[in-house]
């Protein structure tokens, strides 16, 4: 395959010191994997005082890698008029990176543009090729690409995708806790268990699988933190080769571990193992794997143009950021290296009026039946698009845009928004359990996250296209939209039980079917100009009070059941990551029992069966029949351990791990059990097995009573009484509940 035309899907793309780029393709015709190189000169820009620009020109004239220097006028996104810049053309991207590092140090007064744009972003903006794009290319005898044409679009709804070879490699135990004795190797062609024998035979088998099957995607569990480091170490010790990379000339690339702060949480991301020529996805490091799996990850990579390995691991924020850069490059707008905009001056009163989030009401407490839950479809992105809210565009008058030509941010969002709506529509054309429906749902979910973070990035001070005033304009638009929706609903005779940023819970006597809500929704769309959808009609929903003060409603603590039978739970113990899995399961089982009641008359029986579930759980706990791994609390440490003055259970468990020689980073999860006596916790990752007899059953009974209390409270059972009954027994539960009254939403 040389000196000819080739058609295939782009799998991987990375820097190559000599030629420029290395690209791996999956052939469309014969299932082979082909490697090409391509010359890829790149340009970046400098702006600033003319004296400095002249000095830069003198400096660069002597650089062998610089192929051209030119004075130009280009558009800076934050400037009204084009700015004078010096364009620097460099022969390869690798040399551009090295050169820019030096220049940044030497010329600190200059403003740089297009200087740190990633190679995949540069490539798509020049050729339109994105991960898994179907391309047609011509190459010379040395497999050097001469021309490339992309045959499909990243916005295609049902794109032709390559027959990917996916190989799973997973240890048989959590390496941080248990001892790994074997690896499981799976693909569409084979399934094998590889015992970790001392002679290293497993390495030979694994290597043969890598060479014969030649996977495109290697999916692992704990691949970044344990499996790949272990394999590489074994490979070295046993002197057995292992072709982890498809590009044999490269070693595995390691990306450093990182701890960062995001949306009020400290997040820890372990070291990452990246491969060349194929992709490594560690399910335990892939942020959104549980939400959108491989189908969503590939959609994320295609749409954002991030490499597949990166798209699997990074937050959607990086994806949206890359997309905004592409939009800017396509519009021939300069991409700032570092943002230099500061917040505009605001008076105290202006600040009070603008520095606000979405509308979050206090719900009407208690149990309500036949409630319609309606929400705006991607409200904030829709407000951004409708109001044309972008950092470089004048802000809208609430929802009326100041100009018609879309700015960088709405232009980026529009395609994602429209594709997501189309995907959702397409999903509905399949039965819910159809494999295609699941794939489409995963892809739609990936796009949802991009839309969600785009709003946040508008207010992020380091975002290239962030501007706090634009961020505030979005929340202002959101508040206006929600209030208009409330006004329409009330005019139509609905009671608004709750409003939460982009959702409303509506109730009206006689309205119990989806069609009863169509008219009010149509009027809301007319009044706001934004799309709204009915999530469903809740057979019943219970809005819960604060755990500390039963008189105070909490906005996002409720549970209910849709007429379809789907359960909706928010803010309850079952939704919390730190709740032991077993406690969460008992709570969900209780709600499921209650959900069986289709009419008021069914409720007493449903309540009795929920209590039976609770009682069975309690007895299993007391008898020690609950497996210990289901009682593990999934805690978290947010700071370095020596920064804590008083300790929480998570910190005490983390200190045990530290004493055992393990490193605990801020943001890292720490799993533990509650134990009797001292110490009162036991870190789950400690070696050896905890004694089931020493588990603090009383503590777990308390947790169970709290979870049960949340569910039973709206049905008239006092959580304090339930707690007392659970811990001591013998207290008569006040089961004579005025169910009729409760159901009518007294």
């Amino acid at each position, binding site marked *: 395959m040389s000196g000819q035309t080739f058609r295939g899907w782009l799998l991987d793309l990375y820097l190559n010191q000599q030629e420029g780029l290395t690209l791996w393709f999956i052939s469309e015709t014969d299932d082979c994997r082909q490697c090409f190189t391509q010359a890829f000169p790149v340009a970046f820009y400098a702006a600033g005082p003319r004296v400095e620009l002249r000095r830069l020109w003198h400096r660069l004239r002597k650089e062998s890698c610089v192929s051209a220097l030119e004075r130009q006028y280009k558009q800076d996104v934050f400037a009204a008029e084009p700015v004078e810049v010096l364009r620097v053309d460099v022969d390869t991207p690798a040399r551009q990176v090295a050169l820019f590092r030096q220049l940044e140090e030497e010329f600190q007064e200059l403003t740089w543009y297009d200087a740190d744009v990633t190679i995949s972003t540069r490539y798509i903006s020049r050729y339109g090729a994105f991960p898994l794009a179907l391309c047609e290319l011509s190459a010379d005898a040395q497999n050097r690409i001469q021309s490339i044409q992309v045959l499909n679009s990243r916005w295609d709804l049902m794109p032709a995708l390559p027959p990917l070879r996916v190989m799973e490699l997973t240890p048989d135990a959590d390496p941080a806790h248990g001892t790994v004795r074997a690896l499981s190797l799976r693909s569409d062609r084979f399934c094998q268990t590889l015992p970790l024998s001392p002679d290293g035979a497993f390495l030979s088998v694994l290597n043969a699988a890598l060479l014969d099957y030649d996977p495109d995607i290697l999916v692992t569990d704990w691949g970044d933190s344990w499996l790949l480091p272990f394999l590489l170490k074994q490979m070295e010790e046993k002197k057995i080769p292992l072709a982890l990379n498809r590009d044999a000339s490269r070693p595995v690339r390691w990306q450093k571990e990182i701890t960062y702060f995001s949306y009020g949480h400290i997040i820890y991301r372990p070291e990452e193992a990246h491969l060349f020529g194929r992709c490594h996805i560690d399910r335990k490091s892939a942020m959104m794997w549980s939400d959108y799996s491989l189908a969503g990850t590939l959609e994320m990579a295609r749409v954002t143009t991030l490499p597949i390995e990166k798209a699997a691991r990074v937050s959607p924020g990086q994806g949206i950021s890359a997309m905004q850069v592409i939009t800017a490059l396509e519009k021939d707008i300069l991409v700032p290296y570092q943002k230099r905009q500061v917040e505009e001056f605001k008076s105290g*009163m202006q600040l009070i009026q603008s520095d*606000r989030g979405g509308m*979050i009401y206090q719900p009407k407490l208690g149990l309500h039946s036949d409630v319609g839950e309606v929400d705006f479809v991607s409200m904030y992105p829709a407000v951004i698009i409708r109001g044309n809210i972008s950092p470089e565009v004048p802000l809208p008058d609430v929802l009326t845009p100041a100009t018609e030509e879309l700015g960088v941010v709405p232009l980026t969002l529009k395609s994602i928004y429209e594709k997501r709506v189309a995907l959702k529509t397409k999903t509905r054309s399949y039965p819910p359990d159809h494999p295609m429906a699941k794939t489409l749902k995963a892809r739609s979910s990936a796009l949802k996250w991009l839309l969600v973070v785009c709003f*946040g990035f508008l207010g992020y001070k380091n975002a290239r296209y962030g501007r706090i005033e634009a*961020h505030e304009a979005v929340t202002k638009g959101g508040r206006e939209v929600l209030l208009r929706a409330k006004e329409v609903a009330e005019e139509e005779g609905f009671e608004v039980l709750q*409003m939460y940023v982009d959702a409303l819970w509506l109730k009206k006597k006689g309205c119990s079917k989806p069609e009863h809500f169509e008219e009010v929704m149509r009027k809301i769309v007319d009044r706001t100009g934004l799309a709204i959808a009915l999530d469903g009609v809740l057979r019943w929903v219970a809005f819960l009070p604060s755990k500390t*003060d039963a008189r*105070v*409603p909490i906005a996002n603590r409720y549970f209910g059941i849709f007429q379809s039978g789907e359960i909706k739970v928010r803010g309850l113990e079952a939704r919390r990551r730190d709740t032991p899995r077993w406690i969460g399961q008992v709570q969900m089982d209780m709600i499921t029992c209650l959900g069986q009641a289709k009419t008021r008359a069914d409720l007493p029986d449903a309540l009795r069966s929920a209590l039976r579930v609770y009682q069975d759980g309690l007895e299993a706990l007391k008898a020690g029949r609950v497996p210990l791994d289901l009682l593990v609390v999934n805690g978290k440490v947010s700071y370095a351990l020596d920064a804590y003055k008083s300790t929480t259970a998570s910190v005490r468990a983390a200190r045990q791990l530290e004493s055992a020689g393990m490193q605990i980073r801020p943001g890292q999860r720490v799993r533990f059990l509650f134990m009797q006596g001292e110490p009162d916790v036991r870190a789950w990752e400690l070696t050896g097995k905890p004694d089931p007899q020493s588990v603090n059953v009383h503590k777990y009974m308390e947790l169970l009573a709290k979870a049960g209390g949340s569910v039973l409270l709206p049905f008239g059972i006092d959580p304090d009484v339930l707690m007392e009954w659970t811990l001591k027994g013998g207290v008569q539960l006040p089961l004579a509940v005025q169910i009729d009254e409760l159901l009518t939403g007294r």
Partner: protein
Amino acid sequence: MGRTIASITQTWQQEEAALKRFQRALRKEDQLLLDELLVLSRLHLAEASYASNLYPLDMYLIAILLEVYKQLKSLQKEIIPEGADPSVKLDSGKEARFLTLLNETLAVLTSETPPAAELTEEAAEPRAYTAFEEAP
């Protein structure tokens, strides 16, 4: 992403904290009532946030008034027989009180019958100079 000004819940907590000394000085039974009033103000945090008032306490006070008025109306509904117009009842009550007052005043006037000239002089006298014992 971060916020410069305190959220509405934070301002509520600040106002609650500012009342702590006042609350401590209250009698026990009043402390409980104040606590209940503060809970009422929490029911309208979203509306108070939307109002963006420089003094959020004003909004909390209005929220308390609103909730207390709601309770009043609810009680009124329970007390007043169904079908009766509460406004008529209130007005007739006002009228009755006025008539009673008028009758009482007339009764006093007719029993004392002070000279008209004296009355005029007293009315002309500035209130500040009226001796305490002579005050009406």
